[in-house]
């Protein structure tokens, strides 16, 4: 896709004001939260949870210009990927 102008695609995880000794830590914190959040769910339940999560975060972001670019960026990668 063309470079997004409103969507932030730089690493952005963290708690405001907190310093991180290792740059990977806040992203890994998030990823663990995400995977743990799904623990014990069936595939169908996980799919529903993901949809709810997208909607919650989309509402939090609010800015339709950002959301439009995010949808385009997400979709682009799906159509290029080969399966597996």
């Amino acid at each position, binding site marked *: 896709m063309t470079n997004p102008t409103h969507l932030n*695609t*730089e690493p952005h995880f963290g708690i405001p004001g907190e310093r991180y000794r290792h740059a990977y830590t806040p992203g890994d914190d998030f990823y663990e939260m995400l995977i743990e959040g799904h623990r014990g769910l069936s595939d169908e339940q996980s799919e529903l949870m993901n949809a709810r999560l997208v909607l919650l975060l989309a509402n939090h972001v609010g800015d339709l210009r950002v959301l439009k670019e995010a949808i385009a*960026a997400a979709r682009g990668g*799906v159509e290029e*990927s080969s399966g597996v």
Partner: protein
Amino acid sequence: MLSTYTYPRFAYRAPPELGQASPRRVPLVVVGAGPVGLAAAIDGALRGLPVLLLDEDDTVSVGSRGLCYAKRALEILDRLGAGEAVVAKGVTWNVGRTFHGRQEVFNFNLLPEAGHRRPGMVNLQQYWLEQVLVERALALDAIELRFRHKVTSVEPRGDGALIEVQTADGRYRLLADWLVVADGARSPVRRQLGLDIEGKVFQDRFLIADVVLDGELFPVDRTERWFWFDPPFHAGQSVLLHREADDVWRIDFQLGWDADPEVEKQPERVIPRIRALLDQQGYGHVGFELEWVSVYTFQCRRMKRFRHGRVLFAGDAAHQVSPFGARGANSGIQDTDNLMWKLALVMKGEAPERLLDSYASERQEAADENIANSTRATDFITPKSRVSQTFRRAVLGLAREFAFGRALVNSGRLSVPTTHRDSPLSTPDEDGFAGWMVPGAPADDAPLAGAEGGGWLLDRLGRGFVLLVFGAPGLRLDLPLEVVHVGLDGAAAQRYDARPGTAYLIRPDQHVAARWRRVDAARVHAALARATAQETAA
């Protein structure tokens, strides 16, 4: 057995204690002459302790085990007098590349700045490391190393531990004032004492192949770590490649939980996997011989408490991680770095026994950090649920386009030392500082100017407590410790956010105990008392 390495055989000697009715009293016994037990023994000897080191075997680590030694472990090995030999024999690297299929999706540099004596990582087969450490230990008169002396039972007592040892000539008993247990992941001592070690078993199997190549994938002075998710030569699984010493290369293939370890170890299964990697990566002209093959599983777990009275557990005996991140041997060596100065002060009567509680709390904190990082990497590398597989696939896809996606790719976060932020030994800051040399942090190295004596800062730290003073050469304090003066022009001043008169109290394990913008003797005395558990917590 191995074509590139000849195992040394260390001499067994019959113990003089055979046939004695009462057990011999000794100050300190270390069980296990692996990297951790050897580091403990050497550190203890350098700190003035007589050490009896027992090992059931008479050679070094057999086969392919620990490989990567991180900067902090190398700095500790420097202090022990073994760093130079390890770096000289090993293969230095800083850059890791992660591929998805054929495309590179992420890379990291473990040491992005100059002005450090040691690199981010050195690869060296565990048997070489152990050989270096055994030679170092044998050169120290304070260490008595007994090979083929197998500890068969330990009975903790209020004033030490009664130890029964089996040799070819019979059994004998020791009554040790203090016992350091470094007898590895299976820890016979831990088991015999019935102590719990709890955690998570990962349902996956990995093939480890050490091979001697007759060519190279990259020159030794540009060594890198390569990791593939779903490469064309091993579809659907991951592969990790490291260069070792002596033209040996290590390749780890993820096999999946259903793989049969006995079948997968057979050369007719292993050779085509390696051939496919070499051929598909453009090294069809490179031939190889198998050096060592095994199939392993792993766990992330730790003992609830590392201290049980006068019995202290260190290394794999106390905690275990997956291999992704090189956090096993590195953290074990850091255990001994933390333990031995405290044990020396306690054994000499210069600190109360409760100082050793801080060994347990600090190193349990480090183990938790290592286990968390290792577990995260392993969960990313071996996703099990459908949703975690989908997220992994999404991250790897996004990583091709977006920086934030690359930041989430986790093929192992490599060993870094723990900053003990809440250590009871640390004095909280009164003054403002930038940077990372917070109380509890491992001291950063830096080159010193000729006027400062040259060499490296860390060489000046670590024999005892040191007061590191910046930009105040005239400062005189009446203190029972060594004072090291450093100027304000170099990398040290920048890394320690120093101004004229800034002072750091550095522990014997080179961690920051306290720091001030303006220092006086009373403050240093108070911080020293706290760092040696002389003062009880308020």
